[in-house]
């Protein structure tokens, strides 16, 4: 008599899966109101945050010291912040209202890093100037998808050097790995909801004129010219080179809040407002490989570790983050191993909102969370 349970592979215990974040090491205070977004810079030295007070702030990661800030807007919250990839420059993208701002926080940069960063942002002015002017071309009657401009003396004196304004409020920014493209998502934007921007040309394109459903998130594939777009219920992947639809994933979610593509490119996690975390193996079916229900409230953010550690995290309105082991094997015969490791508690729930965002350190098993309680926290 064989117990069928004994034939199932044993999941490793959390103790065998160290290191992973277990404790709150730093609390970042100084933001007024909810913190909506956090992003750790490519070197792992700084963390940027944005929130309801309209400020973007940069902090020293290990000490919690606020090093730099700027107020982008009096009316709008800063909904998302994202460092551009690459260590030879330091460009931070932040969205407030309908605008993306590209920032070179020069007070914390050496002159050469500042210059590299300025050169990246300045290249596009030349490109824009060399184009035939839109205003004299009668054929173009349509409004361009985005207006690229200088944000004005006050912001420019702080290092906010470029502003790109689209037609409705931007909630998501994601960079392409090479740092010349970034995608923005404006969920209420209908045909202009998903935009792809070219930094070197100050150019904005709308690749999806007819998007089925309301866009929630969009992300570039980590190595191929594939682009993922999440609407409320499904995720579509497109081949940008061939300009064709590749796959439609059906997580079975009522309302997707966020997605993240595994650094290997073959797996994807989905967080939903209906409290579920779903793991899709792109080699398997269009249905989720695993459904994880650990939270009492909505999941707002999901994130894979970007630097080779088999970890992922989610952030929930119940005030906690859940850390998981997620090991992907480069073998078609073997599926991912997923083990829940730790619930990180500390953020207070305010007006039914808990943890709004999470980001990983580029190398270490550390993550930073953004809270509706006005704090960011480093967990290690």
């Amino acid at each position, binding site marked *: 008599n064989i117990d069928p349970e004994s034939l199932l592979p044993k999941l490793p215990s959390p103790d065998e899966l160290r290191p992973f974040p277990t404790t709150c090491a*730093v609390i970042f205070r100084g933001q007024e109101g909810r913190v909506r977004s956090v992003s750790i810079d490519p070197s792992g030295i700084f963390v940027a945050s944005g929130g309801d007070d309209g400020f973007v702030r940069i902090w020293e990661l290990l000490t919690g010291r606020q090093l730099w800030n700027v107020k982008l807007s009096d009316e709008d919250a800063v909904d998302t912040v994202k460092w551009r990839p690459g260590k030879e420059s330091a460009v931070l993208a932040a969205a407030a209202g309908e605008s993306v701002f590209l920032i070179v926080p*020069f007070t*914390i940069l050496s*002159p*050469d890093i*500042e210059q590299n960063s300025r050169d990246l942002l300045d290249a596009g002015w030349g490109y824009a100037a060399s184009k035939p002017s839109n205003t004299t071309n009668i054929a173009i009657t349509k409004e361009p998808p985005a207006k690229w401009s200088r944000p004005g003396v006050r912001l420019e004196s702080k290092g906010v050097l470029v502003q790109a304004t689209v037609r409705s409020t931007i909630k998501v920014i994601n960079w392409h790995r090479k740092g010349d493209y970034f995608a923005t998502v404006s969920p209420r934007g209908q045909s202009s909801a998903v935009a792809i921007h070219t930094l070197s040309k100050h150019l904005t394109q709308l690749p999806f004129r007819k998007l089925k459903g309301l866009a929630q998130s969009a992300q570039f594939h980590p190595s191929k010219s594939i682009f993922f777009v999440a609407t409320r219920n499904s995720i579509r992947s497109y081949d940008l080179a061939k300009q064709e639809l590749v796959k439609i994933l059906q997580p079975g979610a009522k309302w997707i809040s966020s997605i993240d593509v595994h650094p290997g490119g073959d797996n994807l996690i989905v967080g939903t407002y209906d409290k579920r975390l779903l793991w899709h193996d792109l080699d398997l079916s269009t249905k989720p490989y695993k459904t994880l229900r650990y939270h009492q409230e909505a999941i707002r953010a999901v994130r894979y570790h970007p630097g080779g550690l088999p970890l992922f995290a989610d952030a929930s309105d119940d005030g906690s983050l859940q850390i998981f082991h997620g090991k992907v094997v480069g073998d078609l015969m073997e599926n991912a191993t997923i083990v829940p490791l730790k619930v990180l508690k500390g953020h207070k729930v305010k007006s039914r909102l808990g943890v709004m965002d999470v980001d990983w350190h580029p190398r270490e098993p550390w993550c930073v969370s953004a809270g509706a309680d006005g704090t960011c926290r480093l967990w*290690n």
Partner: protein
Amino acid sequence: RTPRTMESTAPESKVQVRLSTRHADIELPEDPGPLLVSTALNRYNLSKLVNNLLHTDTHPIPFEFLVNGQFLRTTIDDFLTKHGISAETTLNVEYTRALIPPLHVSSFEHDDWVSAVDILSQSSPGGIWAKGVQSGQERILSASYDGLLRVWNMSGDAIATSTAPNNGGRITSLKAAKWISDQKIVAAGLDNVVRVYKYDEDERTITPSLDLYSHRWGVNDIAVHGPSNRILSASSDNTIALFSSTAKENPAAPSNLLPTSTIASNKRQRLSKPDKTVPSRGPLSTLSGHASPVSSILFKPEDATVAYSASHDHMLKTWDLPTSTCVDTRTTGHSLLSLAALPKLNLLATGTSARHITLIDPRASATQIAVMTLRGHTNAVVSLDSHPGSEYGLVSGSHDGTARIWDVRSLKASSGLGDGQVGEDVYTIQRDSGPGRSSGEGVKVFGVRWEQEVGIVSAGEDKRVQVNRQIGA
């Protein structure tokens, strides 16, 4: 009759002990030979016995006792039982001055977070190199996130405050500062520049005299060596730079790093109207090999042609400075945030993001990576210094808001965690501003230094420099 008194009437178990010490000033006047003592004695009883033999009964010195290299923390009887030692053997018992609780002496308040401290005294490195520091003229140097250096006397008077550097409008927050002599200070921080300052006690001034450029990201730590005028700096750009504190010995500064090198920063530099220009120079050499920010740097205490570095990349490296080569790399499991040497034990202590201190033997012959782990802190260990009078002692500063004193002979009962033996702290120093906490909020300790004349000086997020001293030590 109660069983208690019956027990006390039972024949007393005895053991022969031979007392010795390594410290000449507390040696016994005459060798008493092996002594027959009760196995019921503990540290306190033995301490009374030694004070008796030393005729110091009126001003007793608290002693600690080591049996087979381990502190006696129980009765002799329990110790023998635990280690399976027969009471028939003669025990070699070494005695040493006990570490006394370090009492809070004073706190010096600042306007902003204090990131680093250094001590100038007769026996401090800067004082030894200067050969001119008088007893009672001890000075404390503090470096702050406000970008300023301050020199304090022991009464807590700020004798001098530096002028702010002119760096083209960039952040000036300091992260490291050291006395290289009684008149020269080296400091560095988030604006990536290593600065030499002239300290004039009579004029009460700290004036920048040399700007050293090599780093593209912030400087986390510096080391100085007075006799050779050498400075080492550890940076978040993953490199270490070697400079001379004498301007003319260094090559020209790399032009792309100067605040005047770009249109934008040059414009800001001119707007801020520098009152005086300071010479700018570049590094004698740079040491590359770390893959992440370098947190700490040290000259080998007995040989300044060798340096040790610790990095967020988990590695501890040994560098040969004349050839600018890495001669040894030890890889650990965690980001390394601080470093101190225990030269007589041939060990380096390194503090980690994972809340412990690892002791590493950096010699090429050593095979074990971690000799010992010191556990007790509840947040990152970001600063370390060695005991000025004991080759076994250390002080650590942590983001948990405490400084802790360690004696590497003080072991935890059992651990079974690997990494060799596990040590525990002897004393915990809380902040005068409030108790420690694992999140470190408001109380993180950023820097610690320990010298004989001054005691333990620590600095942190509470905007204070705090002095603790072992009164009577």
